[in-house]
């Protein structure tokens, strides 16, 4: 899922300073799962916006609603229902994709991001999320025992570990796993540690976004 966190309230209050009425729009996708921008968090944010504005001596009407997702046109189109409500702005609690999609598709709607979109990750412990994939566009997990060196190695090394690997931890911080040590251990447990000796060629990062914004088109799905 996409993992995100709420922006500091001071930043959000600043965004809506001149608004009389805003729509806090939750997303029932990834950000609901990571408890950053689902319906519950949108209700909390709405309350904090009202309180923050009140503290500044201003009043604001805040209405809360949600969409199934904010990264699909069909759901963004559902925003037609709010068209006549006279909102000065939408405060989206979706990830950056959602905010972009509203901007792309609703030319008359001002939209502000309530979240900082952090990474693609997963949750192994309740209340804790970790980055697992960087969307590099040219996956190497079949060579690395299913553990990602792009997202999980601080240097995104293709031939790790580097000399800073100590007892399974990364030199950037003792809390950070050295994923190349883990790759070595895991390949070893499958009797495939020889894979570590294969020199990875210099990588073409254009598929990772270094060649500009990326796009996937599936002819079989377009009519």
């Amino acid at each position, binding site marked *: 899922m996409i993992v995100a966190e709420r922006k*500091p309230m*001071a930043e959000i*209050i600043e965004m809506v300073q001149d608004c009389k009425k805003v729509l806090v729009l939750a997303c029932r996708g990834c950000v609901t799962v990571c408890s950053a921008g689902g319906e519950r968090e949108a*209700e909390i944010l709405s*309350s*904090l916006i009202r*309180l*923050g504005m*009140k*503290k500044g001596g201003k009043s604001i009407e805040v209405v809360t609603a949600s969409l199934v997702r904010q990264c699909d046109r069909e759901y963004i189109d559902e925003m037609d229902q709010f068209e006549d409500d006279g909102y000065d702005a939408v405060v989206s609690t979706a990830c950056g994709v959602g905010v972009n999609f509203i901007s792309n598709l609703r030319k008359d709607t001002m939209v502000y991001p309530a979240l900082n979109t952090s990474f693609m990750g997963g949750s192994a412990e309740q209340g804790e999320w970790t980055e697992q994939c960087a969307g590099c566009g040219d996956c190497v997990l079949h060579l690395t025992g299913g553990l990602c060196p792009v997202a999980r190695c601080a240097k995104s090394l293709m031939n790790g570990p580097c000399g800073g690997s100590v007892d399974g931890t990364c030199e950037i911080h003792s809390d950070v796993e050295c994923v190349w040590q883990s790759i070595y251990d895991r390949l070893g447990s499958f009797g495939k540690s020889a894979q570590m000796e294969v020199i990875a060629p210099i990588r073409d990062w254009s598929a990772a976004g270094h060649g500009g914004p990326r796009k996937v088109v599936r002819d079989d799905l377009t009519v």
Partner: protein
Amino acid sequence: MSFDPAITLFSCHYTSQQSCAEEGKELERLGFPAGINLVRVACTGKLQVTTLLKAFEDGADGVYVVGCPEDGCHNVKGSIRAAKRVAAVREALVELGVEGERVEMYHLPRGLHPEFVEKGKEMDSRIRELGPSPFQG
């Protein structure tokens, strides 16, 4: 500054039994502050962050929660959950530039006990010192 604070207290059935004693008159007799509006809930673990924020929106100068001891909650983890939510509200208040002490969590014994009144007085004098809520507009 002298003012009569409006304080909202959310307390579970188990820790607020004193409020039922003497047909509800005992708290008054023991000097429980009159400005505290007691809301009894089945378990403090049921309280949401929005419930606590709503109390501030509705004009409370201070909000506190009384739940069972951390290691002896009737519903096992209810009061621990409540404490986490109180902490989240406290953080949010600080983000808004408001004193975090306006919200508090107390873990108290169940049944009839003097701490229930004591903590009420403590909260009342704390809020008197802090003054009216900055959310009054």
